[in-house]
C-alpha cells in the first residue's frame, strides 16, 4: 500500500540555519499524526515541506507515491490533493466566507458556480458556520475564521490535511470549536498531519505522536507512549514544561 506521506532524509537550511537535519517518517492513509515539540524545533517547516511551501534542501517527500520534490512534478496538481490550514487562517479578506470556499473550486477544479456554491455551503455547515456564509473574514471571530479556512480546504476534496498550529492564534475559549471540527474529521477517516501544542487533542485523537527537537525526530509512537510514558529525557523535559508550566 502506498503511504499517504513518506519523508526520506529531509534536510532544510535557511542560510546557515539548519532547521531540519534528516527527517524520516511516514503517515499511512487514515492516520492522524500529531507533531509536537518546542518552538524552533522545525515542526512547522516539516509540515510546509510536505506541500512544498518550503523547498527542501535535501531529501525526498512523497505524497501518495508522488515525489513532490521532483522538479518535473506538477506541484499545483499535488497541492490540490493536500488541504492546508494555517495558524493565521489566511482567509482572503476581500471575499465573503462563501466566496473564500468557492474561489479555488471554480478557478482550480473548474467547477460551475452552482456546484461550487453547493459544496461551499455544505462544508461551511459541516464546520458549524453555515449561517456566516455572507460575512467577511473581518466580521468573524478567530474560531469562526479558522473553521471557514478548514471548510475552504475541505471543499477541494483533499485526501490529506495539514494543520499548522491551527489553534495557536485563538483565544482560549474558541479553541474547543476548532478542535471539535478536527476531531470529527479524524473520525471520518481523514488523513491528518497536525502540528500542535494541544496535548489533550494529541493524546485523544492522534494515532501517533511525533516529538521533534533541534530539527530531528526524537520520539515517534502512539500517544500513550510518547506523551504518557516518554522514553527520552528531552521529551520528558518538554512535556513537563508544557503540562505544568508553573512548576
Amino acid at each position, binding site marked *: 500500500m502506498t503511504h499517504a506521506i513518506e519523508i526520506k532524509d529531509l534536510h532544510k537550511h535557511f542560510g546557515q540555519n539548519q532547521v531540519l537535519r534528516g527527517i524520516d517518517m511516514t503517515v499511512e492513509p487514515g492516520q492522524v499524526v500529531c507533531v509536537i515539540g518546542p518552538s524552533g524545533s522545525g515542526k512547522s517547516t516539516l509540515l510546509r515541506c510536505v506541500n512544498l*511551501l518550503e523547498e527542501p534542501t535535501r531529501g525526498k517527500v512523497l505524497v501518495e507515491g508522488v515525489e513532490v520534490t521532483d522538479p518535473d512534478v506538477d506541484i499545483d496538481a499535488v497541492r490540490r490533493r493536500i488541504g492546508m490550514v*494555517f495558524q493565521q487562517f489566511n482567509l482572503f479578506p476581500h471575499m465573503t466566507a462563501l466566496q473564500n470556499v468557492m474561489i479555488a473550486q471554480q478557478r482550480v477544479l473548474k467547477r460551475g458556480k452552482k456546484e461550487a456554491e453547493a459544496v461551499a455551503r455544505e462544508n461551511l455547515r459541516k464546520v458549524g458556520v453555515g449561517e456566516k456564509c455572507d460575512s467577511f473574514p473581518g466580521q468573524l471571530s478567530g474560531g469562526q475564521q479558522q473553521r471557514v479556512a478548514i471548510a475552504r480546504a475541505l471543499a477541494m476534496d483533499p485526501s490529506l490535511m495539514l494543520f499548522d498550529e491551527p489553534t495557536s492564534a485563538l483565544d482560549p475559549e474558541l479553541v474547543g470549536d476548532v478542535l471539535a471540527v478536527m476531531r470529527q474529521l479524524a473520525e471520518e477517516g481523514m488523513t491528518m498531519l497536525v502540528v500542535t501544542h494541544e496535548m489533550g487533542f494529541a493524546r485523544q485523537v492522534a494515532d501517533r505522536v511525533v516529538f521533534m527537537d533541534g530539527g530531528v525526530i526524537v520520539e515517534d509512537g502512539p500517544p500513550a507512549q510518547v506523551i504518557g510514558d516518554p522514553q527520552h529525557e528531552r521529551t520528558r523535559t518538554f512535556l513537563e514544561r508544557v503540562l505544568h508550566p508553573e512548576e
Partner: protein
Amino acid sequence: MADRPKTTEPAQRRLSPRKRQRILRGVQYVILVAAVVALALWANWPSLAQNFARLDIAELMLPDLFTVALLNTIIYSVGGFAFSFVFGLILALMRLSTVGPYRWLATLYIEIFRGVPALLVFLLILFLPLALQGFSVPFGTYGQAILGLGLVGTAYQAEIFRAGLQAVPKGQTEAARSLGMSATRAQFTVVVPQAIRIVIPPTTNQFVSLLKDSSLVLFLGVSGQYVELTKFGNDMASTHANATPILVAGLTYLIVTVPLGYLAGRLEKRKGTSR
C-alpha cells in the same frame, strides 16, 4: 547631581511650563493680528480687485470655462491616469518579478521618470515625430497630452502599486498556492485585488497630482478646442490684460482637487478602521 534638586524645585522656577505656554500662545496671537492689520492697511484693495477679481471678465469666461477648459483638463488627466494605472500595475509586477532583467528595466524606468521634471517629458514628446520619422502620436493633442501625463504618472503609480502589493501578507499567496492555484493565478485572484484596495487613497492623491500636471499641456502649444484650464485662463488674461481669468481657473481646479483630497483622507481613515 547638585543641579538636579534645583531644577525640580518649583519655587526656584520663574514660570511654570503651563504659564510659559500660555504666554507663548498669547504672543502668537499678537503677531497674527499685527500681520493682518498691516496687510489690510498696506494693500491697495481697489487695485487688487481691479486686477484679480473683475466679475465682468470672469463672466466672459462662461460657459467655455466648464464646457471646454475644465472638460479638457479632465479628459487629459483621466486619460493619463488610466494609462498610468494599467502600466503602473504592469511595471510594479515587473519590479517584484523573480526575473532580474524585468526588475532592472522597471527600476530604470521609475528612476528616470520620477527623476526628471514632467515638463521635460512634455517637451520631448513634441520632438517625437522628428526622432521617429513618420511617427505621430495618435489622437493628436489628446494623445500627446495623455501620453505625457501617462508616462510620468506610470512611474509614480508603479511605486504606489509596489507598496500595495508588498503590503499584502505572504500568507495570502501561500493559502492560494496551497489550494492549487498557480503563481500567476494566485497573484491575480488574491494579491492584486487586495493591493488595489490598499492603494486607493494614495492613488487618489496621485490623480490630484496628475490633474495639476495637466496644466503642462500649455507647453504643447495647444489652442482652440484643446485648451485646458491653465492655458484657457492665461489666454483670457492676455486678451483682457487682467489676472482675473487665472484666478478663476485656479478656483476651478480647487472645485475638483479639494473634494478629492477629502475623499482620499476619508478612504484612508476607513482603511485604518477596517483593518
